[in-house]
């Protein structure tokens, strides 16, 4: 069945004890995981909503989730600077491994297409590459001058990273050198009155045809401390880094926490704003979103199920919502 975003509806809603931060489906689609502000990870079985809570093992919030070992192992990145490995299945999971990864928050994780490497980015301005099987540090990439917000592997194995000041780099991991950069500066704001850097490359995606790299976050941050800003998605040609287009959510103050390139060619953004949370959708060649699905509160993270029909939204009101992009069965 093809996804029809304009028929989005909440099909499941599962409560947690604390506001949610990040969410991901495991590669098989059997489970969905979410991290919460009480330092834990929750796992729900998609078929029936059966939930278990992973034990607290991080000393802080968990900001990033990823999967290795063909989806059998969950990897969590915490604001305590550590990365932990966990079993995906079983009702009493315990950490399999813990490493001290960054001096400061681990903000982002990504797994290489061949499953061998985990890339992490942190508040120490570093991008690090780890052996997924044993947790050993393989490469440390130095060059960012601010917090690394996002890491992303291209299907070719190329590694990209974006930071608070909207530097977007592609690395030669073997040499540690930056191969090229994409001009994502529009995603950064420095507000001289409030004297803060704001925005950054919050999320990256690659379109299904491999033609475009998409970076998203916010712009027009005229009052960062008051969340006065607008969502912005930048689309670059992968081949030559040229900016092809920008995508907007006109008329409301918001930002994009996560952008997903749907295999059927449209972009989906999990958004938060002063008017609440929503999921926005954009067509490739149109600047304005073609559909907006309002949710009760801000969307802090979003993920697409392997079936291409369902989305998981991590929300502030302590709910994980499953949104289905298909009409109700007759």
């Amino acid at each position, binding site marked *: 069945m093809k996804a029809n975003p304009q028929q989005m509806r909440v099909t499941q809603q599962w409560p947690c004890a604390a506001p949610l931060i990040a969410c991901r489906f495991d590669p098989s689609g059997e489970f969905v995981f979410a991290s919460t*502000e009480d330092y834990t990870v929750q796992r729900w079985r998609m078929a029936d909503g059966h939930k278990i809570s992973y034990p607290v093992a991080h000393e*802080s*919030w968990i900001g990033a989730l990823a999967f290795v070992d063909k989806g059998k192992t969950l990897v969590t990145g915490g*604001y305590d600077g550590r990365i932990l490995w966990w079993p995906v299945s079983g009702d009493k999971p315990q950490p399999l491994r813990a490493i001290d990864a960054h001096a400061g928050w681990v903000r982002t994780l990504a797994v290489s297409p061949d499953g061998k490497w985990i890339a992490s980015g942190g508040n120490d301005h570093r991008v690090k590459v780890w052996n997924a099987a044993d947790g050993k540090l393989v490469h440390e990439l130095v060059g960012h001058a601010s917090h690394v917000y996002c890491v992303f592997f291209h299907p070719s194995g190329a590694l990209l990273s974006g930071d608070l000041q909207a530097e977007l780099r592609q690395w030669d991991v073997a040499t540690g050198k930056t191969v090229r950069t994409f001009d994502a500066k529009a995603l950064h704001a420095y507000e001289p009155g*409030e*004297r803060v850097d704001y925005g950054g490359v919050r999320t990256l995606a690659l379109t299904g045809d491999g033609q475009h790299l998409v970076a998203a976050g916010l712009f027009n941050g005229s009052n960062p401390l008051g*969340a006065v800003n607008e969502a912005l998605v930048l689309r670059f040609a992968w081949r030559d880094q040229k900016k092809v287009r920008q995508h907007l959510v006109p008329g409301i103050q918001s930002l994009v926490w996560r952008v997903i390139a749907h295999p059927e060619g449209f972009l989906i953004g999990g958004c938060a704003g002063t008017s609440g949370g929503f999921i926005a959708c954009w067509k490739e060649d149109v600047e304005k979103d073609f559909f907006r699905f309002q949710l009760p509160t801000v969307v802090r993270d979003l993920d697409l199920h392997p079936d291409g029909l369902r989305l998981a939204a991590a929300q*502030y009101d302590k709910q994980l919502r499953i949104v289905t992009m298909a009409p109700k069965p007759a």
Partner: protein
Amino acid sequence: MLCDYACRSVDHRMARRDFLGGLAGGMAAGLGAAGGLGVLTRPAAAAQLSKEQKSVICIYLNGGASQLETWDPKPKTDTGGPFRAIPTSVPGMHISELLPQTARVMHHLALIRSINTNEFDHGLGLYCMLHGRRQTPASEYPELGAVAARALAPENSGLPGHVKIYPGGTGGRSADSAYLGPKYSSVALGGGPPDNSRRPDGLSDAADLQRQRLRRSIDARFAQRRRTAMTDAYTQNYEQALDLMKRRDVFDVTKEPAAQLERYGKHDFGRHCLLARRLVEHGVTYVQVFHTNYDTHNENFNFHMQQLGEFDGPFAALVTDLVERGMWRNTLVVVLSEFGRTPTINQFYGRDHWATAWSICLGGAKVHPGAVYGKTNANGTAVVDKQVDHANLFHTYLAAVGLDTTTSFDVAGRELPMADPASKPIEELVA
């Protein structure tokens, strides 16, 4: 204030004698003659204080710094957020991990964790914290800096007693001294010497001396028949400006050794802390340093990381520097905001205004080092022990620099209390 100098009141006779004596010496107008006729009603106390001049450095974290991300962390609670608490140089005292350098000097400092001002508005909250009273249309009270300058500044100091440092400050005065008069109102600095404080290159010493003599002569002749408090203030401002120009280098942090500039950091806040130390070292009695912005309704954690990342090093450097120079026992340092921030984290990872359970940090002078006064509950939503308010804090600052806060200022025959007489200092905190 239009003052009838023919009324022959005791105050006026004192003021006239001092004024004329000051002019004869070529110095600024004398005791209280400019901007009012205030004089402590206990001159013996003033004499005692003059032996060991005390000073105050107030660091104002504009916008409302989060107590949970600074002085009263609550990790692993529903309100604690992602940051951890770290041990400090005081056994048993923990503060936020965002202040690692400050943690190493906490044995010089104290915390008050039980503040309830119940004022959630920026302007009104700041008024409370800097005046020790709530704002009321009935009266205007002097700010802490004006009170400290009035009570502590040497009478013939060539430097202003009340200085505020913030980006964009140009040397102008603010109206924050109320009935104490413009002599004690703050001079705003932008991090260097006041604007227009350098004599134009084409004006020689001799020419300038001639100009000043002419001005004084004309002013004195005018004052013989038309002297008022306003003319006194006018004269005093000119004399102070002249003295300040002679001591312009005091305001120039580039005169400091490179190692000091490096230690404090080369951004504005670092340089401003260094300037504050420099001014206090040269006899300025109150310096307020401004750091912005902590009003983090949105992305509280990201922005506190940025702001405290800038605050931590220079603040720790300032404390250490004052200690090393032997200035700590005569200098009160206070770190305050207009309020704290909500324990509840909002949907934008922000915290909102919160004035019923929050904290400040202070130290030096007579403050007990390493003390923690007051307590909040497990998740910081309420004070559970030794609640205090802005009036208590105001009294405490003044007591810490050796002032008797039951004292009044005599202003044109009226006794006006130094601090809110309905309150008192936190006696446990002050030696």
